């Protein structure tokens, strides 16, 4: 090889250029992921934030004789087509519950119909020009207003977009998660303690270990099939309930909790165990009084992450029937319920365009909860993490 100095430095330049190119490509890949995250959140906020606003109309409700029969008669003809059907429907009911209302008139803010709401938010609607003009006039006079949508948080599901809320799904989620944690946390921690602190290194232990790693990677929908075949068909747990949903999710969360608990237990230094054994503790006493307290932050972090994962899971819950129309808040663990992601799924399938913002709004709430759960897990780890 008789390359001249110039040739070699040329080559070197080329090689360095190539090297830099790899750096820029890899930087670009990370930037791409970041860009996606930005686009995603911008899109969700753009679609979902309107869900927190709801058009309201200030109308005079006239509790007349006619209104007791048909609620539509209680309001001025100009308004009756603009307010939500649900308001109209409840007027006769109100009068039956409270007979003193008869003959009185009340001025108050009521829900506008979904069409009015969508019109104010600038979406396409099926209103004619005359109605649009009327709405514009009412907006100018302050009779129609977009207010904070309290109902979105306080009501259950509904087929009418302006009435639909996330309350029943939130309650269902909480109940399902209670079941999930009540099963997965103790069993998961106990399994991890057994494998880390007690188990002899034999075939059975290895089998359990391989099993747990595999369970963590099995598609979630298969847990749904298990829930359907074993819990519902075999043990007769009622379908669509927080009980069966929670049990199914518990099996899914179990490996997450086991794996993180084992990591936490492993990070407790041996010297602590030796010291405890040295003063005459039995194995269980070592674990209970010394190892577990030190591993607790790690275990909690893992459990919170597992919980957040279970909270976002939908596929197995579809199979066990938890994607259901639940207008009222569920009161017991053996009643039909739905959860937040399932509610999002139900709304995403609604043909009415007004449900798009409901879906995105639900997603924002769900994401806020999940991200704060994960953030608290990270904070917990940061705060209590000990380097030995």
């Amino acid at each position: 090889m008789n390359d001249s100095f110039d040739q070699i430095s040329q080559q070197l330049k080329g090689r360095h250029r190539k090297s830099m190119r790899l750096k820029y490509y890899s930087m670009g890949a990370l930037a791409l992921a970041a860009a996606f995250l930005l686009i995603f959140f911008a899109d969700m906020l753009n679609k979902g934030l309107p869900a927190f606003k709801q058009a309201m109309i200030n109308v005079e409700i006239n509790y007349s004789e006619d209104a007791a029969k048909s609620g539509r008669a209680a309001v001025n003809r100009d308004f009756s087509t603009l307010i939500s059907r649900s308001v109209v429907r409840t007027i006769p009911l109100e009068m039956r519950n409270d007979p003193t209302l008869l003959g009185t008139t009340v001025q108050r803010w009521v829900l506008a119909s979904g069409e009015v709401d969508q019109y104010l938010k600038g979406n396409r609607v099926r209103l004619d020009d005359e109605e649009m003009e009327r709405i514009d006039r009412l907006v100018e006079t302050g009779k129609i207003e977009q207010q904070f949508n309290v109902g979105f948080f306080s009501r259950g599901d509904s087929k009418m977009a302006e009435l639909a809320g996330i309350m029943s799904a939130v309650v269902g989620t909480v109940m399902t998660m209670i079941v999930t944690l009540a099963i997965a946390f103790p069993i998961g921690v106990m399994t991890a303690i057994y494998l880390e602190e007690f188990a002899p290194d034999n075939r059975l232990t290895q089998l359990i270990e391989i099993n747990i790693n595999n369970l963590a990677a099995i598609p979630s929908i298969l847990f749904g099939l298990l829930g359907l075949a074993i819990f519902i068909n075999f043990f007769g747990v009622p379908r669509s309930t927080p009980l069966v949903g929670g049990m199914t999710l518990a099996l899914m969360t179990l490996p997450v909790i086991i794996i993180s608990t084992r990591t936490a237990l492993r990070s407790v230094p041996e010297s602590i165990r030796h010291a405890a054994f040295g003063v005459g503790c039995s194995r269980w006493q070592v674990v209970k009084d010394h190892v577990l307290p030190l591993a607790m932050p790690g275990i909690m972090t893992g459990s919170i992450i597992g919980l957040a994962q279970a909270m976002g899971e939908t596929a197995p819950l579809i199979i066990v029937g938890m994607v259901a129309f639940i207008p009222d808040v569920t009161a017991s663990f053996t009643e039909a319920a739905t959860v937040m992601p399932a509610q999002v799924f139900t709304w995403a399938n609604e043909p009415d365009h007004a449900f798009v913002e409901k879906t995105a709004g639900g997603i924002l709430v769900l994401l806020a909860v999940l991200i704060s759960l994960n953030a608290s897990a990270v904070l917990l780890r940061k705060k209590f993490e000990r380097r030995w």
Partner: protein
Amino acid sequence: MMLTNHPFLIFCSVLLLLGLMAFFIARKKATQVRASGTAMFSQPDQYAWFAVVATAGPAILLSALGAFVMLLIGADIPTFPLLLASLVLAAIGLAVGMVLVRANFHARQAIERVIRWVLAGAATISILTTLGILISIVGEALNFFQMHSFWDFITGTTWAPGNSFLMAAGRGDGASGGAEFGSVPLFAGTFMITAIAMAVAVPVGLLSAIYMGEYAPSRVRAVAKPMLEILAGIPTVVYGFFAAITVAPFIVRVAETVGLDASFNNALAPGIVMGIMIIPFISSLSDDVINAVPDSMRQGSLALGMTKGETIRDVVIPAALPGIISASLLGMSRALGETMIVVMAAGMRPNLTINPLEEMTTVTVRIVAAMTGDLEFESAETLSAFALGLVLFVVTLSLNLVSVIMIRRFREKYRVNNL
């Protein structure tokens, strides 16, 4: 519900009462024995706990066993006598516990043994879960294969369960009239979407891992890692909504401007979004593996005059390759089993095509479709979901096993313990 709950509640409260009694009486007795000057093997509290275990343990075991036998064999054991028997057993246990409060009994070791068994019992639940999945899926899948031939299922190219409800209602015209269960188009769709996802996830995930492992200053790392974790924490149903509402129409519009015809349920949208979902799995595992490659290898390469890029390409990546492949396989098994994104963004119509702009369906979509229909559980379509689930289980399980073996090989080669 109330009627079954009522005796159960009484049972629980009586058991709780007995347990409390056991605890306090045993502790008192042990304290007395010790106060009288006899040296005892264990502490009073340990005797007390042993008495509680002796009281509650057998009783709970008996009632659980009874309930299980009742469900398993369908034997009709009346609830009330069963619970009563359990309570009698609890009382006997209490008595035994009391008798055993004596100086030469190792209460601590006895508790230790019980705890060991309880913990081991908890550990076997993971095996039971896997067994449960296997039994439930294989059992129902076998039912399905009795109705339809396994060979047709594996090689058939038409998936048309449409008429199976007629057969379930007894109005079908004979053996397999109308309903066809050929799973090839479903698997073709699944692999197509998975391939698109991997085409997005592997380069982006791997390159970001390289950047984070080799180039990034610690400040960038501190931001990038949580960012990728957020990506991993987004629920799949949310990704599905994003794919269906934002990405799919965008792809249709882009395809129109280039003069192509794309379906709103095209395979590209769920594929791309699924790829984004998998990026964090691949990048975090690859990052770990790249970090585990010993620094001496990098130093050796740099000392020979290789540029940094050449070191990464020719030394670090080849060394980390088993780990990277195992990460990709794990990502792939996740993509194969992913449900919500494809249910919301991919099509329902089985379609055997290689054009990603066309509508196609996947295994998981058909499982969900079969499970959410108003069909009898014993109908062929519902059971077909279990057959599909079985194939899915086998495929993902083997991918996971290969991945575990690869990572173990890597770990042994470089003696890293934290992978």
